[in-house]
């Protein structure tokens, strides 16, 4: 089947197998490899994207469900090569090790901070409980979120 969708503002149209996930479509048809394939079961959040503004695991969404809808991925987050403040904070706080979970975390954090610019540590942990990181033990990810939240509110 042919899927027509808009990804990071650009129109795309591609022939896909009807059973293909949105993650497979993004990676294999569009060459957008930033969304990762770690569990392919909706448990780890490595493939997190926005579908019409809602945070989803793209491995659990069919490519066909994105028909005529708006998809935003990690590749759409940095503006003309400039890092998003959340991305900067992840590097600065040491929240990246192997980095395989990182794009999914960055997307989930962006979703959180767009909705709640002042999250408490408990809110941060609850919001990110669908993302698994095997390297960091999460402390530096929490630090990165707090750093990014401060900067996005205009603080230093």
């Amino acid at each position, binding site marked *: 089947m042919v899927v027509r969708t808009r990804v990071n503002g650009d129109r795309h149209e591609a022939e896909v*197998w009807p*059973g293909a996930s949105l993650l497979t479509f993004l*990676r294999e048809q569009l*060459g*957008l*490899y*930033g*969304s*990762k*394939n*770690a*569990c*392919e*079961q909706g*448990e*780890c959040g*490595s493939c997190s994207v926005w579908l019409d503004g809602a945070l989803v695991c793209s491995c659990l969404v069919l490519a066909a469900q994105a028909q005529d809808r708006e998809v935003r*991925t*990690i*590749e759409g*987050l*940095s503006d003309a090569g400039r*890092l998003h403040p959340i*991305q*900067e904070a*992840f*590097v*600065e706080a*040491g929240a*990246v*090790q*192997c*980095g*395989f*979970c*990182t*794009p999914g975390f*960055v997307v989930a954090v962006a979703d959180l901070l767009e909705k709640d610019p002042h999250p408490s540590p*408990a809110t*941060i*942990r*609850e919001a*990110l*409980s*669908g*993302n*698994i*990181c*095997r*390297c*960091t*033990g*999460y*402390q*530096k*990810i*929490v630090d990165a979120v707090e750093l990014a939240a401060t900067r996005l509110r205009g603080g230093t």
Partner: protein
Amino acid sequence: MSIDIRRKGGVGESVRRVDGIPKVKGDFEYASDLRRDGMLYGATLRSPHPHARIASIDAAAAAAAPGVQAVLTHADVPGKKTFGLDVQDQPVLAVDVVRYAGEPVAIVAAEDPEVARAALKKITVNYEVHTPVTDMERALEPSSPSVHPQGNIVRTLQVIHGDPNAPADVWVEGRYETGMQDQAPLGPEAGLAVPAADGGVDLFIATQWLHADHEQLAPCLGLPPEKVRLHLSGVGGAFGAREDVSMQIHACLLALRTGRPVKMSYGRQESFYGHVHRHPSRVWMRHGARRDGTLVSVQARLLVDGGAYTSTSPAVIGNATTFAAGPYEVPNARLSGTAVFTNNPPCGAMRGFGAVQACFAYEAQMDKLAAALGLDPIELRLKNALKTGSVLPTGQPIVGAAPVRECLEGLRGLPLPADEPALDRDPMLLPGGAGNVGHGETLKRGVGVAVGYKNLAYSEGFDDSSEAWVRVSVDGHGPVAEVKTAAVDVGQGIDTIVTQIVRTELGIDRVLIRPPDTTIGSAGSSSASRQTMMTGGAVQLACQAVRAEIDAQGGMQQVRRPIEASRVFHHRPTGKLDANGQGDPHVSFAFGAARAVVEVDTGLGLVRVVQIAVTQDVGRALNPQSVTGQIEGGSAQGLGLALMEEVALVDGQVKNASFTDYLLPTILDMPPVVCVLVEEPEPGLPYGAKGVGEPSTVVVPAAVVAALRHATGRELPRAPVRPDDLVGL
């Protein structure tokens, strides 16, 4: 004139990761992201039986399916039919027998991954099913079937020290078990094999050790070593899982057969079958002490399940056995260790590598002993703590830093987290919080400590050296240093450490790390807490050679042509153990201690870990942020082993090969980790820095379970501890 040494961005600074920006943007290319025009997709048919004879394989229907370009079985392996890190006993594709459920039997290359997977179902394999050996103790019984012709013992060793029958005032005894843990790196096993014009093959691969893969690949492919070239691709975590070969040989075989690039990338379920796991263990220990707490004797029997093939089991049981007395002065010991073959999935390297299982047992024993003697558990440990000059049960003296006392005292100096009233608490902060199942009516708090240690680099006579090449040149922007090694950055940050070392040694800010491949000498594995000292050491030596030449030419300003040097770093030689386990087996040691504070809902058996504190002997922190990152991450994997992570096996079958069923610690399970770095530089190592990746994983499982025992008063001899164990069902 000497060069200007600027140490900005050098060792000791929390320099940002050199690969951080591509990783946060999603631009970093992992092995599972590789692609080439015209590439095919590989897939693997695996045995559904843990033990069977293959009567026949019929692949005709699969080979004839549209889009399928090759179907290969053992008959198509042109060279050596087996591979393995230590002993080459693992078939590339099963020949006549399968020894574990999940063993590769046939491989397919097709135009599309779905077509490849569908073709697997068209391969007919007739199995004569045999009874599997699935229990490690049963495997030792004379009546047990043999997994391999030579029997079921992979390695057995004993360490006899002093007089093991020496009398003591007080004895404590216990039996302990740990389950099979999965490394669960988030990046799946993946690689891309590209056939080359010279009849050889280039493999782009996520691995921990390019040269060990290379050494195993070339003979199996029937190619001379120079025609098999490995190139590192992005590695999405490893933790030991990528030490053994998974899809490397298969992808190359398919590429060579079809003449087209072939990509293989496992899904999560296949990943559970595609790599080795942490050895499950059963340990018996008996500790004897004088009334004042002085340890007199430790007796131990350790048994680990190596699964179907050898992998690194000999070294794992070597570690578990030589570390079984713990980081204590023990004048008399009898320690025996055995690794067995079973028809369970093969076990091999995972962070902590035998030291984890030993620590779980000896630290439980130390708590038992403290209780029997009426002593404070930390006091008892301090009284017996190893120090520089102490002699280990192997007869090996500790010549380097051994700040066991400092680690324990550091823990004691940390304030405990404040008690929190349960009843008006945010439900998210209760055990089982997100499930909103309890209200904190039956909460009990407990505190546990553990101290342990881990060897750095390879042991028992292995020379795991590392080579580095450094070149300095000057372009329009000034001096630039290029570095090449075969060291793999699995996420731990060796590329950043190397960059810091070059800046420190040469005073050059611009450092380019060339992609690792097999055109340079081995760097050894990114495991055993060894890359900072080994590849770091090689880079330091090469930089010093380059600097000497720059100085000889009259300084950087006089340099007209690039200056380069290659150097190999060897750690001090070690030796094998004799029949009584005496010798000089280990290079160096890193120590660590942990304190865990837990809350247990004794009605529900649910646990909240309130805080983990780790004091760790790091020698010298070359990148403090990265060091604490390793400690925090290692603690999370330790918490996982203590509370939730276990590959569930029933009759040799993995029952939980997914992240839905195999539970990993989430951000809600992990408390804040308080890290205290104990810096006592290690003589003979570059900058005095010890490897930092493993001690927290060694001690945290023991500390968390000790805290659960303290909270509940239960024995809890097995990790992971299940809710049933805590409520006593």
